[in-house]
């Protein structure tokens, strides 16, 4: 038996906040369930924290076969080393073939370090997962500049961080049965001490992912006031590409794309956005997409329902007039 064949099972690392599993983790349960069924193995969920209450049962209702629960006051808030230690030990002992994380601050802090200790491959920001069933190889589809790339790992477990918002949470079924395994660990507090946590000010946490209409701004638009006016006429909010937030023209909380937010408004108007792969990932599932750009060949038109080739600073005022009329 090859060493690789000793690895079986799909694992999902679950995150929670305010006694609830976060949406990104529920989405991982959707993806993980699909992969586990295809491979005919169990779907297990890793849950760490303190005073976890009914969360393990919830995870079963959402599709887990097994929930590993590690409960300890030291784990109440995430710090790298205790989480890293526990996860590495559990993976070594149980040998799952796939381990999935959500692309969150926690996931992106933890997963690389775990992959490093286990000397295994990790892909980042996956927007789709497929299975090469014959080789039990996970095809990890990630944005690659303006393109997409399929990444595979020749070692086990195969680890991936997955973008939130690429699928829906599974249906909750409170008649589902599963197994909760409580694991005891001798846990050391670790080398990082949290001294203070402060909530961000509201302006820094603009929840654009909840808006029905987004007017998104790219480098092709010089005057933010035009976009603001269009957003106000439509009752929407402003979004932005990375270059815009990096230039400080709009707050980082408005950034849409791979490293920003994944949005699905009913209407998305892309103003002067050429459509780099990293941005497209964040908006392609919007309801109706309108793209305005000077370059007819810009990739944004491939994901748009309506395309206007022209100078966005001239198109927006005309559009505002028509919408008001």
């Amino acid at each position, binding site marked *: 038996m090859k060493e690789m064949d000793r690895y079986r099972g799909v694992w999902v690392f679950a995150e929670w906040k305010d006694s609830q599993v976060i949406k990104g983790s529920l989405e991982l349960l959707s993806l993980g369930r699909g992969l586990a069924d295809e491979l005919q193995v169990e779907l297990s969920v890793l849950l760490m924290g303190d005073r976890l209450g009914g969360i393990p049962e919830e995870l079963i209702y959402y599709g887990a076969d097994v929930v590993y629960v590690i409960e300890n006051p030291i784990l109440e808030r995430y710090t790298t080393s205790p989480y890293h230690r526990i996860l590495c030990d559990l993976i070594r002992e149980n040998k799952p073939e796939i381990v999935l994380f959500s692309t969150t601050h926690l996931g992106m802090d933890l*997963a690389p370090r775990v992959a490093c200790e286990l000397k295994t491959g990790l892909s*980042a920001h996956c927007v789709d997962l497929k299975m090469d069933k014959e080789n039990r190889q996970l095809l990890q589809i990630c944005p690659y500049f303006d*393109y997409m*790339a399929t990444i*595979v790992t*020749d070692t086990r477990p195969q680890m991936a961080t997955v973008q939130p918002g690429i699928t829906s949470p599974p249906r909750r079924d409170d008649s589902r049965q599963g197994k909760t395994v409580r694991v005891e660990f001798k846990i050391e507090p670790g080398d*990082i001490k949290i001294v203070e*946590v402060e909530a*961000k000010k509201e302006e820094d946490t603009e929840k654009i992912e909840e808006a029905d209409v987004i007017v998104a701004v790219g480098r092709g638009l010089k005057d933010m006031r035009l976009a603001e006016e269009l957003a106000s006429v439509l009752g929407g909010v402003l979004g932005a590409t990375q270059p815009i937030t990096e230039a400080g023209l709009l707050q980082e909380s408005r950034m849409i794309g791979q490293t920003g937010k994944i949005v699905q408004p009913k209407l998305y108007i892309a103003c002067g956005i050429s459509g780099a792969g990293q941005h497209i990932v964040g908006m392609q599932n919007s309801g109706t997409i309108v793209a305005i750009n000077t370059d007819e060949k810009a990739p944004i038109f491939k994901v748009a329902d309506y395309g206007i080739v022209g100078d966005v600073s001239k198109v927006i005022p005309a559009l505002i007039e028509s919408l008001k009329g």
Partner: protein
Amino acid sequence: MNIVVCVKQVPQEIRINKTKGTLIRDGIKGVINPCDKNAIELAVTLKEKHGGKITLVSMGPKDVENTLTHGLAMGADQAVLICDRVCAGADTLATAFALATVIKKLDDVQLVLCGKETADSGTQHVGPQVAHYLGIPQVTYVVNLLIEGSKIRAKRQLKDEYETVEAGLPALVTVVKGINEPRMPTYLDIYEASKKDTHKWCAEDLGLKEDEVGIQGSPTRITKVFAPEAKRECKMLRGSIEDISSSLANDLKSKGLV
């Protein structure tokens, strides 16, 4: 207190060989990864306060030297470039291993700084993986950093909150762009930087084996690169701006979106 800053050269413009699915590097100018400039700026301000020596560490082809010059002109003291064909094609794990091997060879490194992510692949993996190979704590997404004796106090920028943590030195910190405004080197700075040392080390100099670096040392591989499918039929609106606007406004109204 000696500081290392990990630096990556990224292409200024992205072009892809569509048949091979590889990056076209010929004729494309390489620049310093934007976030790495913030890490260098932080290193220079810490040095101004606490003293010590700043070393830039990078891996890549020979022309990365030009990119490192920018960092030296910002105020770093020396640079090390891992430059070897066998290191080409490395994924994040193999890259982190090579960088950590260099850092271990430098004297009394107390702090390793990285940009949060690179502008090209943007995985955010290398920082935590270097920290693991060095066996030191990592503090990611840092927007403010203080050194207090043998400890750091770092403010992390998370989704809805800021978290301030303390960690003992040595430690690795990844910084976000908002942490500072990188200085622009003057011509004089660039001239002075040309006199500073950039050490070029090959895999053998570092005792790196072929199966630890480059493609062989990388557990992940790219099997296919493809253009995203056109998911929608795009209706191109043509005519005068007024006609286009009114027809779009009407369509949006009839769909109940306005």
